[in-house]
């Protein structure tokens, strides 16, 4: 069970306290408590349907269907006023599961739009930013392509370029490797690690791709769909070997649970 220790400074990274999420009367997860350190990669794990993406949507303020508290560097998300929340959202970049690139815009326009809306930059300055962000994700010179002209892996990278357009402090990734071949998936993992190091990003990823989890995660939480709460917290490599929960070990070692045998 994830717990918060008292020595965590209130303004340090992301802190989730006593978060309970519901869909109507149905409980999704309860009593979630965890801390995400700055410039680290934190993975939210669990079997399908356990509420991983719902937790991510709560953390990025797209959904609010429960109790508890989420704070970013000491700023409490749900008790902030609208302007503060909007300012906080601009410090958050999100790569959606389906990439959610705007299909009527070119790749360059997709990356440029957040800059046009939220910065005073002029067109020439925005062009520099767009070209650079695309170069960072290995899509240099692809500004004029439409999203439909890109492969799945390239779309993921274009989505990543859009997510880091505003130089966010926090990067949320929803199933970044889903639907990608192992080589593209490995390249994306390497890219995430390099971006974290170069941009000093705090990365929060929802995934159940084991190779990705073991490659990128500094810390993790495992959401259980039976008890509807987090039953493990820590380095996934450690959890795979020493977790007290059989379902966590089964998940991380890709083994059948005793119930399934």
């Amino acid at each position, binding site marked *: 069970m994830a717990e918060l220790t008292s020595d965590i400074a209130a303004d340090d990274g992301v802190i989730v306290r006593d978060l309970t999420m519901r869909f109507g009367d149905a409980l999704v997860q309860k009593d979630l408590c965890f801390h995400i350190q700055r410039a680290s990669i934190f993975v939210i794990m669990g079997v399908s349907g356990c509420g991983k993406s719902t937790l991510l949507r709560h953390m990025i303020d797209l959904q609010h269907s429960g109790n508890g508290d989420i704070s970013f560097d000491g700023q409490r998300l749900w008790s902030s006023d609208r302007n503060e929340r909007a300012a906080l959202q601009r410090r958050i970049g999100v790569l959606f599961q389906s990439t959610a690139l705007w299909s*009527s815009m070119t790749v360059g326009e997709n990356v440029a739009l957040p800059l046009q809306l939220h910065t005073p930059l002029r067109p020439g*300055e925005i062009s*520099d*930013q767009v*070209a650079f962000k695309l170069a960072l994700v290995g899509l240099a010179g692809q500004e004029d392509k439409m999203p*439909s002209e890109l492969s799945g892996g390239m779309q993921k990278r274009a989505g990543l370029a859009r997510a880091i357009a505003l*130089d966010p402090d926090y990067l949320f990734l929803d199933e970044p490797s889903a639907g990608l071949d192992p080589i593209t998936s490995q390249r994306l993992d390497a890219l995430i690690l390099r971006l974290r190091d*170069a941009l000093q990003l705090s990365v929060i990823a929802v995934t159940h791709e084991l190779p990705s989890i073991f490659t990128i995660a500094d810390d993790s939480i495992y959401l259980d769909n039976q008890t509807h709460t987090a039953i493990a917290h820590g380095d996934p490599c450690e959890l795979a070997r020493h977790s007290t929960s059989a379902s966590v070990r089964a998940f991380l070692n890709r083994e059948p649970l005793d119930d399934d045998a």
Partner: protein
Amino acid sequence: MAGRRGVKTALYRLEDSADRPIIWLSGDWARAEHPPASETVAQSVGSAAAVVVIDGSALDNAHPRIAAFIHGLRGLLSQRGMGVELQHLPENVSALMQLARPAPARAAAAPRRPNSLARLGMRVRRRWGTAADTAHLVGEALVLTPKLVSGRAQTRWRDFVDLIHETGAASLPVVTVVNLLIGAVIGFIGAVQLKTFGAGMYLADLVGVASAREMAAIMTAFIMAGRIGATFAAHLATMEANEEIDALRMIGVSPFEFLALPRLAAMTLMMPLLYLYGAVLAIIGGMVVANIVLGTPPASFFERLQDAVSGTQFVIGFVKSVAFGVLIALTSCYIGLHAGRNAAEVGRAATRTVVACIIGIISIDALAALCTNALGI
């Protein structure tokens, strides 16, 4: 040359010399409202030097904007055959610069634009393709209709019932309002004009013939094109984008048979019924106006209507409404099934359907007017 434009503006200074120009970067780029654009700075660098030095020793911080600027500048200068030497850059900026891959070299020359004759040929070929697809669709509809009637078509009857409800009962409110008002408008304009000549008694002729023969069929068709045609096209285009139609093909189901045929049948059945309903309401609208403006009692209006409007007028309107129903269903299904695979195409499919249906409805109506005139009916 200095780039100082205010307290919050990022700073750079170009020390231009023929053999070794140096760009000194300085200040707080994180808070700068307008960091210099690489294009502006590149233009101010002379072309004589082989290498331009970028020095970051006076920078206050290591914001990613600095790396974006240098990346852009390096690209622009390399196009002019000039190299870039980086010195004293903050560690994070250097790391970002290493991460950013340069753009691959552009293709040597853009493909030449085809000449006007070739463009005309390509256009004709595209149009011919569309015409062939349309003929294929109509042929498929003709071949598969007996299969549908005999209950052997690969379709779900539950979908068909839902479509009957969607196209029929669910359309009643809007068909009611529009036809009632159209009848009232025709009645009002007619009453004012006919009253001038003392021919108010002929208002029933005007409202009856106009509604039964033209307006009820056309207005109902316009409503159905906007309401149902657009829905069909958007739904099928969404299914195409989500690969649902490919999934149907993979289980051996013809998308036309499963998706378009029930829509075609529902529209063909419901359009004439909605037309009859609309015609009656338009006549009622005209009758109410005749009563209010001319003081004609409803019984007298109805009596005159029976003399003036023959069953033939309703038959013409009825046949046209069947044609309109077929047109709307086939057009919307054709456009929906041939839409591209993204969200923008869904909206485009809906718009194209409405526009194509309106043009088609007017064209069919004009053709029908010519035919009935030639036949003397």
